[in-house]
């Protein structure tokens, strides 16, 4: 509860600071606010408090809140030299990102489906605006409109699902729904089943799983890069946490019913995400499609719900978030210099900025899932989880897709190290250096010694 209050208050202070044109103070205020929120997150550890029957800050919620807050913090550090070039109204950016974060905290800690909806909407509405915040840019407008229409559509599915489930069980409360399923395991109301499927569809829309992914590439490409970073990392993590909370908890007794459509979704998502990413010529679009494929790997955790699924998702989401933040940070730098985000604009980066190139390489290795990086541990846990019930063909299929993934992630490495580029050295602001260093450190530490995060939840 403190976490949400802190973040919301910070958002308001930032808004007022913007009103008085105190642009220099925005970043420090935000960082202090987020660090305080992070402090509350750590302080509430093992508390497992229930707030008014609406939210439950168990370790699951806190761990994901932590990842979201740290991710957002790093993204805020990337604002150096970024907004000043793009907009006069920086305070709005800050405020909206903070509001979105507050929504996400609700999404990861809801106990009542009403809170899920409220959190999701707080986040989504902020994101609709953020996607279109470059008012005079056509692509940004298109992204915003597409995102809004698709988002509203998917919210409809979600709400419809919630309604049906309420109709069947008479409650929004996750525990009561679970109790209902256990008690009436032979006589579950027939309207419960479409409810589950509709909620699944709604959430798949939000996390960008195929075949509900069509908005992602355009929205990711059209939005300002920083917002894309936010959407494809932190937002996605929160979306999965919400997904997991619902399905691995409340709907777990019905696992046999919804696992088949889920496996179909996983396979389609992996296939479409990877194969389409393979043909992209644009780095940002490639990341967008690859984020679809990562959604597929993350959904693996729901195929077999075991004692460790929640931890696996946390590891995977953390690995994916920090690697993507590196990728996008380098993308922003490259784009500022060359004005393009095609693969060619990365050519020769290794010669000019070896350390930046090295960070990007580690990020790509992590996303591809090479050992000694966090991404490998994430993928390994997912495979292990699904192999636990011997879904051998599913794992085999995922491995084939991982191979395709190697191919397109290595395209970036090839461009960075093995191709000649003409551009001059990139200027790397200090804050970028911090973000890259922190993210690389997290990626490697989680890859080499994951014990520290494995038993967190």
């Amino acid at each position, binding site marked *: 509860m403190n976490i949400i209050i802190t973040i919301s208050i910070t958002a308001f202070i930032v808004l007022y600071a913007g009103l008085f044109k105190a642009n220099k103070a925005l970043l420090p205020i935000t960082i202090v606010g987020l660090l305080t929120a992070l402090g509350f997150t750590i302080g509430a550890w093992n508390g497992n408090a229930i707030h008014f029957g609406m939210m439950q800050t168990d370790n699951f919620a806190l761990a994901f809140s932590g990842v979201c807050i740290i991710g957002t913090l790093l993204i805020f550090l990337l604002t150096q030299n970024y907004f000043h070039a793009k907009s006069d109204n920086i305070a709005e950016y800050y405020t909206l990102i903070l509001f979105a974060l507050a929504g996400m905290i609700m999404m990861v800690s809801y106990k009542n489906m009403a809170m899920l909806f409220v959190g999701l909407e707080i986040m989504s509405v902020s994101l609709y605006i953020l996607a279109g915040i470059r008012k005079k840019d056509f692509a940004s407008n298109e992204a915003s409109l597409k995102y809004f229409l698709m988002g509203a559509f998917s919210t409809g599915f979600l709400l419809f699902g919630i309604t049906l489930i309420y109709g069947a069980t008479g409650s929004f409360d996750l525990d009561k729904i679970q109790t209902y399923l256990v008690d009436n395991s032979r006589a579950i109301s027939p309207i419960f089943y479409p409810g589950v499927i509709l909620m699944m569809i709604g959430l798949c829309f939000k996390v960008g799983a195929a075949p509900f992914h069509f908005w992602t590439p355009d929205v990711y490409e059209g939005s300002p890069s920083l917002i894309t970073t936010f959407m494809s990392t932190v937002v996605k993590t929160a979306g999965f946490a919400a997904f997991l909370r619902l399905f691995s908890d409340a709907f777990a007794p019905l696992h046999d019913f919804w696992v088949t459509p889920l496996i179909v979704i996983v396979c389609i998502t992996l296939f479409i995400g990877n194969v389409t990413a393979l043909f992209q010529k644009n780095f940002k679009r490639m990341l967008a499609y690859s984020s679809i494929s990562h959604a597929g790997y993350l959904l693996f955790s729901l195929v077999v719900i075991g004692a460790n699924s929640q931890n696996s998702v946390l590891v995977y989401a953390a690995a994916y978030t920090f690697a993507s933040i590196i990728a996008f940070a380098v993308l922003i730098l490259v784009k500022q210099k060359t004005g393009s985000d095609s693969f060619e604009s990365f050519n020769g980066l290794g010669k000019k900025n070896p350390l930046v190139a090295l960070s990007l390489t580690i990020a790509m290795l992590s996303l591809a899932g090479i*050992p000694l990086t966090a991404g490998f541990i994430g993928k390994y846990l997912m495979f292990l989880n699904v192999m636990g019930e011997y879904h051998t063909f599913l*794992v085999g299929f995922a491995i084939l897709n*991982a*191979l395709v993934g190697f191919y397109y992630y*290595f395209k970036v490495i090839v461009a960075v190290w093995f191709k000649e580029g003409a551009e001059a050295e990139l200027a790397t602001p200090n804050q970028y250096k911090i973000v890259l260093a922190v993210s690389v450190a997290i990626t490697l530490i989680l890859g080499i010694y994951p*014990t520290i995060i494995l038993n967190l939840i």
Partner: protein
Amino acid sequence: MEQLLLLIFIPLAGALITAFAGKSAKIVSTVFSVASLGLALFIALNFIPDASTQFEVNLPWIADLGIHFHAGIDGISMLVVLLTNLLIPIIILSSYRHDYHNPAAFYGLILFMQAGLLIVFTAMDAFLFYIGWEAALIPIYFICAFWGGKDRVRINMKFFVYTIAGSLFMLMGIIYLYLQNPAHNFEINAFYALSLDSEQQGWIFWAFFIAFAIKMPVFPFHTWQPDTYTAAPTQGTMLLSGIMLKMGIYGVIRWLLPIVPTGVQDWATLAMVLSIIGIVYASLIAFTQKDAKRLVAYSSIAHVGLIAAGIFALNQQGMQGAMVQMLSHGINVVGLFFVLDIIFSRVETNKIEELGGIAKAAPQLAITFLIILLGTVALPGTNGFIGEFLLLMGVYNYGIWAAAIAGLTIIFGAVYMLRMYQNIMLGKTNELTITFTDIQGSEKLVLYIICALIILLGVYPKPLLHLTEASVQQLLEQVNQKLISVK
């Protein structure tokens, strides 16, 4: 136990320090590689050649997932550990004439790869083995793709995707074994003790075999190899052919045979046939090669084919032969590639027909080249002989026809190798080779060391055979026992 940890961490620390050593990277990496050679020799001298595992380290790593840093050395490991630590300094020395751009990265990656290889060769935890397996792959990819020749990016992508495809299926196999293991860990001895039915063993066999077969490479998984060898920088080729392909052979001996003996037995005929096809096929292609580097690459496939055949014969002679030949082949092939590199550095070509008469201009090179060549074609008195002899004996005990066909390698090998020597070194000197200067400085040093090893091991192979004998025997007994108990 400290020695083994140190053995793995010296190259690792060396890699980090070399990466920041700038221009003096060459010297720094030499120091570290020689230091690890010294330590490896120390370990070898203190090694008692019985079947036990010595210098064992067992530290919890990701204990929650049953993953331990568990490594140890038995006779089989000892041999490949020696090979690795022997070849890395030679490979680094062989690069002294070159001025690679960005030397810090180049030498750092070599040392990093060494650490990965040592993990592979000593791991007693399947997960650790897998980590080492990949940790050796990433540096060699970068070495070949960064400092390689024409078309290096495409060729190395193929190499990378090929090998990682194999290893991912191996990972799946490892996870499966982990789940089958009631203790839920990756201990090699727990994996040995598993009782799997023959269908399970068949699947595991293929999951592992493909990874190892790609690495070796065994026909028909070899298609990445000639291009990669040719396009790689010489040191990359040496690493690939001298040490890396031994990962595949070692993997078969250490993991495949004892864990799924029934699977191996069921599929041994196929593996044998593939190995023998590889021998003949690669030899025939080697005949037609115009580029000496490609010729050596194909001859390497033929030699590895024979080693694989010796292993799948599943008897003492074949296995022992494979052990000796791993070491011999590593030394010889590194020597051959180095000679070709010396020639290339003088005349900018490795095309056999453009060369000729170098022996007149460079007598020392001619003699050392001849010794290496004779070692490769397994002349008695050289290191190649004892290995190939044992291998053929092993295959003969498996089946006469197999031995007859596999024996062709010796004849074929002698023909194409000597013909290559004849065309490059003998005959008329042409305008390209007339100004050829003889070997000097570091080149002399490297070639002398290699020649000395070839003759020494050829004349007195006993300590080498003694080193591995007990472990090989125990391994075969273990396999046979398991086979009997299944029946």
